[in-house]
C-alpha cells in the first residue's frame, strides 16, 4: 500500500510572486513615478547636484590659492563685489555685443543660405553639405584655423587683402582692440551660421508650396512673401534656434579663449571667459560661481522674455 501524497507545507513565501507584484504595481498610479525614477536619478546626479553645488559655492569663500581664508559662508559678498567690479560690467557689455552681433549675423546668413538651398536647383544638395561643414568642426579646431589664417605674419587673409590692395600692410586683427571683437564675431559667424541654415531649411520644407502660389496670385512680391509668409511660419523654429544659440554663446568661452583670451586689454572679455579665468587662473571658485549664477539667471530671463515677445506659445 503506497503512502498518500500530501501537499508540501505552506510557507509565508507562497503568497509572494514577484512578476505578479510588478504586474499589479503597473496598474497603480505609482508606476509612472517608478519608471521616471532612473532618469530622475541620473539628472539629479549630473545636472541638479552640480548646479546646486555651483550655486552654494557662490555664497562661500572658496579660493584654492588662499587656504587661509577657509570656506565659510559669505552670503552675498561675491555679488556685492561684482556690482563694484568694472571687469564684470565690461564683460557683461562685451557679452551683449558678442551674442547679439553673432546671432544677428548668423541668422541673416543662415536664412539667406537656407532660402538659396531651398530652391532645389542643380548642385544644391552638394552645396548644402559644403555649407554645413564649418559647423562640424569643433570650436577649438575652428579657432586655431582662423587664428592661423588671420595671423599678422603668415596669415593668408592678410596676404590676400594686401595683394588685392584692400589693406596697406599686414594687420594683427586680434591685437587691436578696435578690430579684435569684430574679427572674433566673424569667426564665430562663419562657424555657427550653418546651425541656422540647417534648422531654417527643415522649417522651409514644411511650408506648403500652395501658400506661395496663392500669394503670387494675391500680388505679394518676393519680399512680402518672405516677411508675411515665410518668416511668420518659421517663428517657432527661429525662436528655438535663437535660444539655443544664445545659451551656447553665453556659456561657451572656448572660441574667444583660443582667439584672444579676452584681450587685448579687456576688449573681448565676456562673462563666460571671465568666470572661467576666475576659476582656473585665479582659483577663486566662489566668485566664479557667483558669475555663473548671474549668467544662469540672465539666460533664464532672456529665454522667458524672448518666448513671450515672440508669441511662440500663441500658435
Amino acid at each position, binding site marked *: 500500500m503506497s503512502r498518500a501524497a500530501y501537499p508540501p507545507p505552506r510557507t509565508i513565501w507562497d503568497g509572494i510572486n514577484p512578476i505578479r507584484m510588478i504586474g499589479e504595481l503597473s496598474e497603480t498610479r505609482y508606476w509612472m513615478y517608478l519608471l521616471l525614477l532612473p532618469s530622475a536619478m541620473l539628472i539629479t546626479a549630473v545636472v541638479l547636484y552640480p548646479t546646486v553645488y555651483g550655486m552654494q559655492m557662490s555664497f562661500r569663500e572658496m579660493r584654492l590659492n588662499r587656504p587661509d581664508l577657509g570656506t565659510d559662508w559669505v552670503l552675498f559678498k561675491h555679488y556685492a563685489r561684482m556690482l563694484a567690479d568694472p571687469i564684470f560690467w565690461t564683460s557683461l557689455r562685451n557679452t551683449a555685443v558678442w551674442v547679439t552681433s553673432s546671432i544677428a549675423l548668423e541668422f541673416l546668413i543662415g536664412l539667406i543660405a537656407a532660402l538659396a538651398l531651398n530652391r532645389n536647383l542643380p548642385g544644391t544638395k552638394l552645396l548644402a553639405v559644403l555649407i554645413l561643414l564649418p559647423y562640424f568642426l569643433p570650436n577649438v579646431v575652428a579657432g586655431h584655423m582662423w587664428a592661423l589664417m588671420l595671423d599678422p605674419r603668415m596669415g593668408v587673409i592678410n596676404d590676400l587683402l594686401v595683394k588685392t590692395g584692400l589693406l596697406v600692410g599686414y594687420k594683427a586683427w586680434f591685437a587691436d582692440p578696435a578690430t579684435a571683437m569684430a574679427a572674433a564675431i566673424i569667426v564665430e559667424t562663419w562657424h555657427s551660421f550653418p546651425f541656422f541654415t540647417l534648422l531654417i531649411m527643415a522649417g522651409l520644407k514644411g511650408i*506648403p508650396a*500652395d*501658400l506661395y*502660389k*496663392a*500669394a*503670387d*496670385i*494675391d*500680388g*505679394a512680391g518676393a519680399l*512680402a512673401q518672405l516677411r*508675411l*509668409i515665410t518668416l*511668420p*511660419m518659421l*517663428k517657432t523654429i527661429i525662436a528655438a534656434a535663437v535660444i539655443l544659440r544664445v545659451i551656447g554663446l553665453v556659456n561657451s568661452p572656448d572660441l574667444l579663449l583660443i582667439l584672444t583670451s579676452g584681450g587685448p586689454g579687456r576688449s573681448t572679455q565676456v562673462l563666460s571667459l571671465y568666470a572661467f579665468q576666475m576659476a582656473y587662473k585665479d582659483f577663486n571658485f566662489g566668485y566664479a560661481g557667483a558669475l555663473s549664477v548671474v549668467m544662469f539667471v540672465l539666460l533664464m530671463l532672456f529665454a522667458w522674455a524672448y518666448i513671450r515677445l515672440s508669441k511662440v506659445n500663441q*500658435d
Partner: protein
Amino acid sequence: MATLSIKGVRKSFGSVEVLKNIDIDLEDGGFLVLLGPSGCGKSTLLSIIAGLESSSGGDIVIGERNVNDVHPKDRNIAMVFQSYALYPTMSVRRNIGFGLEMRKVDPQTRESEVNKAAEMLQIEHLLDRKPGQLSGGQRQRVAMGRAIVRDPDLFLFDEPLSNLDAKLRVEMRTEIKRLHDRLGTTVVYVTHDQIEAMTLGTRVAVMKGGVIQQLAEPQTIYEKPANMFVAGFIGSPTMNFLAGRLERADGGLVLSHGDAALPLTELTQDAGAYVGKQVVAGIRPETLHPGSGGSTLTGTVDVVEPTGPDTMVILNVGGQMLTARVGSRDRPKLGEAMTLSVDTAAINLFDPDSGDRI
C-alpha cells in the same frame, strides 16, 4: 467678368508632353469644368491659365488680353486651391483681405469688402480666428471669400471639394453653384468628380493624356459621349458596352451578339456604313427596364446590389456583363433569367477599333 480663350496650348516636361494642343473658348460668365482622371493634365492647364506655370506653346487670352507674359497677380484672377492655401499665421479677416492689402487698397474699403464677402459666405463670426481653428468646410468658405473679395475676371478652382467629407461636399457644391449664379463670374473648375462636373458646369472638357476628349455641355457629354473613354468616365454606374455585329433585318438595324439580336429600332445615329461590321453599343444602366416590350435583352442575374432608391442588377448576357438600374422593389433572384426592355433611342454606337462614336 471676361471671356477665356485657350489657343493651342502645349506643355512638356522634358520629353514628356502633358498637354497637347488644347483649344477651349469659354463665354463670359461661363462655368468650364476640366474633368479627367489623375495625370490627365487638368491641373497643369489650370496652373497655366493662372500663370503659375508657363506653357510650352499657345496662347491664353482673358477678355481681350493675351496674358502669356503677364504675372499671375496682374491677370486679375482668383484661385481656390485644393489645400485652401490659407495663410496659417494670419486671421481669417486678413486672409480674405490679403489680395486687397497687397494691392494697396485703403483699409476702410478693404474692411468693407471683407465684411461683404464674409456676409455672403456666412462667416462673419469667424473673421478673427486663425485658419487652424476652423473646420474643413469653414476653411473652404474662407478660401472662397479670399477669391471673391477681389472681384476678379476669372475664378479658378483646383479640386476645391476633394478634402471635404461626402455630406459637406454636396453642401459646398450647391454653395459654389449659388455663388456663380449670383456673381456671374467666369469660372474654370478642375475636378475628377463627374457629379461635380455635371452639376456645376455649363461646359465640360473631359481630358485624358493631355488631350481634350470632348468639350460640350454636360448633358451632351452624358447622352452623346464622343468616345468610349468619355462614355465610361461619365455616369455611375458606368455605361454598359455590348459588343456585337451590326446587321440589317426587316428594314431596320439589329445588333447581333452571341446567339441573340437586339433590334435598334429608334437608333438616332447614322450607322449605315457599319452594317456587317463589329460595333460596340453603349447602353446606360437606367435605360434598361424590367419587361419584355420593344427591344429586349435577356441574361442571367449574377449580382444584385440594392442602393436604397434603386437596385443595381448585374446580368450575364451571352458572356458580357451588363448593369441595369432598376426600381428598389425589383429584386430578382440570383441565377434566374431576366428580360430587360432597352430604350434604343438612348443607345450610342462606337467603333471598337478607334473607340469613337459612330
